[in-house]
């Protein structure tokens, strides 16, 4: 038993050091808590720095809650809480232990506010913690968040990670991140190899670092290498920016086509100048709003339900307008114009009275927000991507209806020769109502799409009526394919002009162009030929 005393001492010392650590931990935790609750952002920043270094197992949860705006404290005892909103109350849990503490009223707790600088700092801290996550995409994002960040210790942390990393994608970005750190300072060879390593990367951080090297670096060779690398990058950038503008053009074009395609039927095929077309779009947008209100639990799919609903609502209103007003005014263009203008005012006021003059907020479902990142300079926003596809889909369906169904056949027959069609037993008045309903319904569907892009308010329709007529007239009255091509070309032209001359002038130029074009070709891009062309 000679060893007893030794063991005893060992055990005792172990015990002591343990409690020592625990006490120190509590102390610094208390300090962090005080700093966090402070109203001073400098002190809060200190708290985040301390938390980052702290060994407490829940630091990550606390920081995440802080980032999400869910970190609170209890007014009575200043206890740090993580609170989640539940209706009008908050369910709280102890931030340090994770114990559930039940549900409280807003009055009992106070939010720990953060600001941009603080959120940015937390993101970096979290990224450093997530660097060793099991999920490679999390690791990738973590490194991405740290690109070009000069914080102390990041370089060595990245180097350590690179030694362990197996995933190729993460390795690449790790190497890139390390190359960025080598770009500044270090030996000439270091900088040269770094310039070579980052060559061709599109990250904005790299571009700005290279730019400063081109100006500031003392060694000629490095400057030249950086310059070359920059030239390569800007060539790539130009290409991607061209692609981006093209996408913007297609997207604006798809909006124009969607807004105009219903009009292409009512105005183009039937010859009715329908000034209330914009309001039919607006009704579609409001239908989306109502559907979302009716099913708040299923925002994600509500928009899919809204499409048929908007078609039916706008289509029925369209048929009603046709039956009560337009039917009596066929062949009298000016009177139709005035009457439908009146209807548009009535519809606007009706919406104002029912829904208030304020804009309504239509929620964008999660699957439609954000963007598809092709690379760090080119990303396509999901809502617009979906709308382009949706526009093409609507076009194809409409085209098929007109070309392949008996209704389509009758519509074409009536527009070509009304008297003859009636002689053949086509109920022309029924066909008129159905066609107008179809055109109006499509306008409603366009409203669903527009509710995702713009404000849903009583004036929504007015913003699109001029554009719609422009597209139909430019494309050639009575020609669906013409509408499609004209919408997309006007959209693309507008987006290519906009960076040059600004949004206001771009629109003016487009209008001037159309006026001149109509002077030269009054029947638009694709005039109707042969029998269907009016005398």
């Amino acid at each position, binding site marked *: 038993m000679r060893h007893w005393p030794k063991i005893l001492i060992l055990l005792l010392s172990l015990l002591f050091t343990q409690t020592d650590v625990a006490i120190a931990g509590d102390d610094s935790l208390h300090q962090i808590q005080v700093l966090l609750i402070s109203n001073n952002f400098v002190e809060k920043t200190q708290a985040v720095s301390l938390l980052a270094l702290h060994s407490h197992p829940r630091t990550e949860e606390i920081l995440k809650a802080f980032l999400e705006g869910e970190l609170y404290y209890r007014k009575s005892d200043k206890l740090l809480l993580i609170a989640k909103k539940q209706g009008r109350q908050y369910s709280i849990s102890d931030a340090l232990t994770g114990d559930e503490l039940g549900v409280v009223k807003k009055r009992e707790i106070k939010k720990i506010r953060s600001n941009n600088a603080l959120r*940015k700092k937390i993101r970096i801290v979290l990224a450093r913690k997530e660097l060793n996550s099991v999920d490679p995409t999390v690791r990738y994002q973590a490194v991405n968040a740290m690109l070009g960040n000069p914080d102390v210790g990041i370089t060595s942390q990245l180097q350590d990670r690179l030694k362990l990393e197996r995933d190729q994608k993460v390795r690449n970005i790790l190497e890139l991140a390390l190359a960025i750190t080598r770009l500044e300072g270090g030996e000439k060879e270091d900088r040269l190899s770094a310039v070579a390593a980052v060559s061709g990367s599109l990250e904005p951080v790299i*571009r700005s670092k290279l730019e400063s090297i081109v100006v500031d670096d003392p060694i000629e060779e490095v400057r030249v290498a950086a310059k070359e690398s920059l030239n390569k990058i800007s060539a790539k950038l130009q290409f991607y920016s061209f692609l981006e503008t093209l996408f*913007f053009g297609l997207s*604006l074009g798809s909006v124009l086509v969607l807004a105009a395609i219903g009009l292409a039927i009512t105005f183009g095929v039937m010859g009715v100048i329908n000034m209330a077309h914009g309001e039919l779009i607006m009704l579609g947008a409001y239908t989306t709003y109502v559907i979302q209100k009716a099913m708040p639990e299923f925002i994600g799919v509500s928009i899919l339900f809204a499409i048929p609903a908007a078609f039916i609502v706008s289509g029925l209103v369209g048929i009603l307008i046709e039956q009560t007003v337009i039917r009596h005014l066929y062949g009298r263009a000016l009177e139709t114009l005035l009457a439908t203008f009146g209807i548009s005012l009535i519809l606007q006021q009706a919406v104002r009275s029912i829904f208030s003059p304020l804009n309504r907020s239509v*929620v964008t479902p999660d699957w439609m927000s954000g*963007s598809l990142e092709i690379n760090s300079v080119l990303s396509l926003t999901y809502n617009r991507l979906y709308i382009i596809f949706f526009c093409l889909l609507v076009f194809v369906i409409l085209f098929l209806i007109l070309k392949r169904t008996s209704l389509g056949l009758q519509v074409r027959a009536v527009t070509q020769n009304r008297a003859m069609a009636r002689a053949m037993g086509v109920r022309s008045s029924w066909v008129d109502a159905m066609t107008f309903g179809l055109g109006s319904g499509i306008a409603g569907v366009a409203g669903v799409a527009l509710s995702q892009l713009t404000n849903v308010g009583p004036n929504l329709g007015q*913003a699109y009526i001029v554009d719609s007529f422009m597209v139909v007239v430019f494309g050639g009255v009575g020609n669906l394919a013409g509408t499609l091509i004209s919408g997309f070309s006007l959209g693309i032209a507008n987006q290519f002009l906009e960076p040059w001359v600004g*949004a*206001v002038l771009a629109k003016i130029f487009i209008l001037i162009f159309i006026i001149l074009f109509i002077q030269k070709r009054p029947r638009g891009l694709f005039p109707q030929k042969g029998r269907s062309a009016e005398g």
Partner: protein
Amino acid sequence: MLALNVLKKTAVGLAAAAVLSGSAQAAGDTIKVGVLHSLSGTMAISETTLKDTVLMLVEEQNKKGGLLGKKLEAIVVDPASNWPLFAEKARELIEKEKVSAVFGAWTSVSRKSVLPVFEELNNLLFYPVQYEGEESSKNVFYTGAAPNTQAIPAVDYLMNDIGVKRWVLEGTDYVYPRTTNKILEAYLKAKGVSEKDILINYTPFGFSDWQSEVSRIKKFGSAGKKTAVVSTVNGDANVPFYKELGNQGVSAENIPVIAFSVGEEELSGIDTKPLVGHLAAWNYFMSVDSEENTAFIDAWHAYIKDKKRVTNDPMEATYIGFNMWVEAVKKAGTTDATAVQEAIIGIAVPNLSGGLSAMMPNHHITKPVLIGEIQADGQFEIVWETSGLVAGDAWSDYLPGSKDIIADWRAPLSCGNYNVKTGKCSGQNF
């Protein structure tokens, strides 16, 4: 038939009441104030709230016993967002209704439209909205922010506290953004920001296709220097703007947007998630922690009978303007316009952020400037404020045409457009 009878009776009753009140007014035991805010049309969204604010203030003043022993009576007219109609309605208020002062107007163009009427008929207009400056009328009291009590401190904050080096000045294409951006551009250049670090851009009213604009901002902001957007984008064009910023991944942490026209009222009813962290500069936020503010919010909720309604900066400006007028009338002992004009200069009343705002000789007032970050609940977290109050400057010191001009409505100068270099007073000298 019964319903019709009831209707008839009510109509007769109403007519009788109108006649009665008409005769009561003629007897002259009320002091009338005009409320000239659009209750229909595009501006109704913003202006209706201010009408309600004035009505609430009048009611409260009457509960306190009125003014000079008389009850206050608010006369509400609706200029319907129609600028020439503003002038007509102003004339109607002054000539027909014989009001002692008018609270109203929102857009700069409506103010410009009524200005000659107030000067001709010598009445008082209290204008409660932030505006572009470059004006000082004997008959108008500007209780909202001038560029130096909103835009300039906001830029200072971004420059000194956030370290912004590159600037996008994004605005809607009309007079307020254009003038403000002209002032800001001159200011930034005076601070040593080079031409290529400033991008100025305008979009039409109600603009919704923000994709290229945002992409341009993104590219401009990727040059390695900290970039911020100073937004004078007006009205509902803001919603698609912020939505597009969110979709294209422009976060407040990378490129913050500071807005001068986005307040609590504009944020209520839109999805604020993509906006969190973006900034706004005002002289008041609903989240201001002061006793006056809590009392004001409670009074507002009680008056409007809706706990969800928010308060905003133009409401505070209306509150300050109304109280200043009340104090000035008390001091002058009369509601006579000329006497009130003389009495009001130097009068200080509590503002809602816990201080006193005073009417300066140039008819602008002193205010604190606050910067707030948008929170997920549609409120602002105040992240910065000026250490003291800032006095509104009618003529900007940063524009070549107006830096030598001052406004001082005290005798003997009594001029809103006095050139200190030439010693001449031009225009607006009644």
